[in-house]
């Protein structure tokens, strides 16, 4: 099987997000970056399929040089090849990123393309769906279960209060959601192996962006709350406040 995984490097979930003084950008100076947690699931699924069926896993990532750290993590988990699409930053418009990724994906003739269902920085939730249209391939995102039999994929995707079961043929695109698998921690052997793999670098030219982030802001601060009490005896007063003041129960 020839498998691709598109990955992104994102700030750690514990990172505080600070804005630059002009609020035009996120200040990245103190941020610890990680492999996007949903992409870990995508890498894991790809590596498991390779281990079961043979083949090769290629990770592809677009962004500045720092993203190669996340690519090394994916290689350490068991991916075989890496292609870095060099840009000075991540575009704001996911369609622009998708177009650049699509060029490389077309060349690779992959049987399956995995991605995380979303990146935890921009939270667009778009990439698997956008690529489905650009590449004219079947796709499912928010996938929590996947089965491959011959050339047919059956997936369960999470919807509000239940699951959808979808079926399609490969080549296809899968957007991974938590629950699909438990990603492995890279073992020392994997880390050593990853160090020896050369990451292929490519220059890309990006299409003009149509989604523009004009500025950022912090969410409005919460008004200081009220400590209603320090024992279970405060419960009637709490319920009264919820009923009469907040009017939510």
């Amino acid at each position, binding site marked *: 099987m020839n498998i691709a995984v598109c990955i992104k490097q994102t700030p750690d979930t514990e*990172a505080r997000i600070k804005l630059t003084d002009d609020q035009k950008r996120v200040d990245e100076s103190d941020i610890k970056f990680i492999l996007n947690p949903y992409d870990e699931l995508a890498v894991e699924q790809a590596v498991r399929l390779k281990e079961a069926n043979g083949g090769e896993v290629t990770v592809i990532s677009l962004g500045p040089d720092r993203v190669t750290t996340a690519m090394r993590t994916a290689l350490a988990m068991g991916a075989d090849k890496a292609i870095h699409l060099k840009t000075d930053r991540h575009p704001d418009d996911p369609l622009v990123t998708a177009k650049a990724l699509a060029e490389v994906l077309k060349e690779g003739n992959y049987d399956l393309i995995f991605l995380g269902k979303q990146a935890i920085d921009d939270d667009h939730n778009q990439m698997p769906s956008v690529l489905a249209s650009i590449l004219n391939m079947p796709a499912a995102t928010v996938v929590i279960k996947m089965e491959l039999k011959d050339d047919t994929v059956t997936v369960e995707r999470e919807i509000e209060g239940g699951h959808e079961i979808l079926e399609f043929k490969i080549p296809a695109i899968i957007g991974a959601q938590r629950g699909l698998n438990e990603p492995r921690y890279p073992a020392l052997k994997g880390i050593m192996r990853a160090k020896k793999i050369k990451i292929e670098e490519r220059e890309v030219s990006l299409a003009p962006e149509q989604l523009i982030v004009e500025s950022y802001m912090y969410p409005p601060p919460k008004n200081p709350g009220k400590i209603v009490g320090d024992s279970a005896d405060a419960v009637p007063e709490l319920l009264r406040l919820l009923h009469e003041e907040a009017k939510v129960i």
Partner: protein
Amino acid sequence: MKIIVFAEHREGQIRKVTFENITLAKSLGVPFEVVLMGNTAENAVETLARYGAEKIIKVSLSGLDTYSPDGYAKALAELIKKEKADILMLGATATGKDLAPRVAALLDAPAATDCIHVELQGDRLKLVRPMYAGKVHANIRLNGTVQILTVRPNVYSAIESPAQPTVREENITVDEVKTILKEIVSGAKGKLDVTEADIIVSGGRGMKGPENWHLIEELASLLGAATGASRAAVDAGWRPHDEQVGQTGKTVSPSLYIAIGISGAIQHLAGMSSSKYIVAINKDPEAPIFKVADYGIVADLFEVVPRMIDELKKMKN
């Protein structure tokens, strides 16, 4: 100017976010039409009209009997072109979040997902969407001839405003469908999803183990609430992934969020701090959850929660 509002339905029933979007589209003050695609319940038109849909386009799809994400996306893209619509609005639901980017790519148009503020300035949308699970908000402008957005459920209210609808029928032929919906499996019977719930009762590490979750469930059932969980509780295997609230789980905006035994890690706060009212029950007065809580009780949850259950039962009688 013309806005198309996509009416989302599951098993024939129109979903609440559609009514919210109709109310929102009405408030923008430009013509809008509601598109009803595929097989729906008989009363679908009636329900849409109750929330103010004056113009409804009923689209039948030749060559497609069931839901298909790529089939619906192609049909929607074709409809947008045919109608020369400027804006396509969907709900930021499992379906909307998948369809919007598919349509966007087919039309080479930008899509902004999960918007929490929507304004129209001239012919351009002015949008706010949370990023980093809500740690920051981004002010978004969309260029391009068609602007596509999904709106987060529960942010705008659905207001009844009965209209006499005119219904137009359209037929679109969908060929070469790639992905077919085989089946919808409902979760535990009557289980409410955290992203759709008006009230959420959520438990964390302080619950000490899955055997104590009956407290969360009983409280939730008395309040008609969905049950949520922190990442700690999910990682420990106490609760299923689909209940997780936070940066690697669901982002929620209910009217009331009750955090029980949750300390309030930054990734959790990111996912729930846009709730209208937050209640925190935790014995540690220094827990960060109290910084975002509107009401707090600093005490042992194993005393507070049973008392809440008792008092609510009394209120019900």
